[in-house]
């Protein structure tokens, strides 16, 4: 899922300080699963915005809404039910949602309530870790299913650097050296010889270094 965190309240309140009415718009997609921008978090944020504005001697009216997702046109259209009822939208979606509303509603000011962080998973309740960098050229079939692009601090493609000690990365003792883990995992499948194959110089254009990316599926377009 896309993992995100709420922005500092001071930043959000600064965005809406001149608004009289805002629509705090939750997203029931990834940010609900990572407890950052679902309906519950949007309600909490609404209360905190009201309190923050009260403390500043101002008042603000907040409408709460939510969309199934904020990354599809068909759901964005549902915003129209609140037309004329707000000065701005505070979206608790990831950055995709904020962009999508901005793309599709030219007269609507949209503010982000979250900082979008990474593609990750949750192995422990309340804890998320980065697992994928969305680089566009997956090598997981060569690395035992563990991603060196997202999970190696240097995104190395040919084994660990000299900072790997006892399976731990030099940047932080809580970060595993993913190349050690790749080695151990390949070894457990008797495929450690795979480590000897030199990965070629990588073309990072698929990772966004070639500009914004786009996927078109002719079989799905009508």
């Amino acid at each position, binding site marked *: 899922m896309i993992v995100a965190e709420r922005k500092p*309240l*001071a930043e959000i309140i600064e965005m809406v300080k001149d608004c009289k009415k805002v629509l705090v718009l939750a997203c029931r997609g990834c940010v609900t699963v990572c407890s950052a921008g679902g309906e519950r978090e949007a*309600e*909490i944020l609404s*209360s905190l915005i009201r*309190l923050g504005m*009260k403390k500043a*001697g101002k008042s603000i009216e907040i409408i709460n809404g939510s969309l199934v997702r904020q990354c599809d046109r068909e759901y964005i259209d549902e915003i129209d039910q609140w037309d004329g009822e707000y000065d701005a939208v505070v979206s608790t979606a990831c950055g995709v949602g904020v962009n999508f509303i901005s793309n599709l509603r030219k007269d609507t000011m949209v503010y982000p309530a979250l900082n979008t962080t990474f593609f990750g998973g949750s192995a422990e309740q309340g804890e998320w870790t980065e697992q994928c960098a969305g680089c566009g050229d997956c090598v997981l079939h060569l690395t035992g299913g563990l991603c060196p692009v997202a999970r190696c601090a240097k995104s190395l493609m040919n084994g660990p650097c000299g900072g790997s000690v006892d399976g731990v990365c030099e940047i932080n003792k809580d970060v595993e050296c993913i190349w050690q883990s790749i080695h151990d995992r390949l070894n457990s499948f008797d495929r450690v010889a795979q480590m000897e194959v030199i990965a070629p110089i990588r073309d990072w254009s698929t990772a966004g270094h070639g500009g914004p990316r786009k996927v078109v599926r002719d079989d799905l377009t009508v």
Partner: protein
Amino acid sequence: MSFDPAITLFSCHYTSQQSCAEEGSELEQLGFPASINLIRVPCTGKLQVTTLLQAFEDGADGVYVVGCPVEGCHNVKGSLRAAKRVDSVRDALEELGVEGGRVQMYHLPRGLHPEFVAKGKEMDSRIRDLGPSPFKN
């Protein structure tokens, strides 16, 4: 500055049993502060962050929660969940530049005991020291 605070207490049904004794008059006789509005909940683990924040929106100068001991919650982890939510409200208050001490969690044994009244007095005294809620502007 002297003022009469408004304090909201959310208390576990079991922990606050004494509030029912003698039709509620016993707490008063024991010196439980009149500034405290006691709301009993089936389990403090049911309290949501929004409930605690709403109390501030409704004009509370301070909010506190009394739940079971961490290791002795009737619903296993209810009071632990409540403590986590109180912590998150405290963090949010501090982010807004408001004293975190305006919200507090206490873990107390069930039934009639002096700590329930003592913690009420402690909260009353603290909020009197802090003064009126900055959200009352």
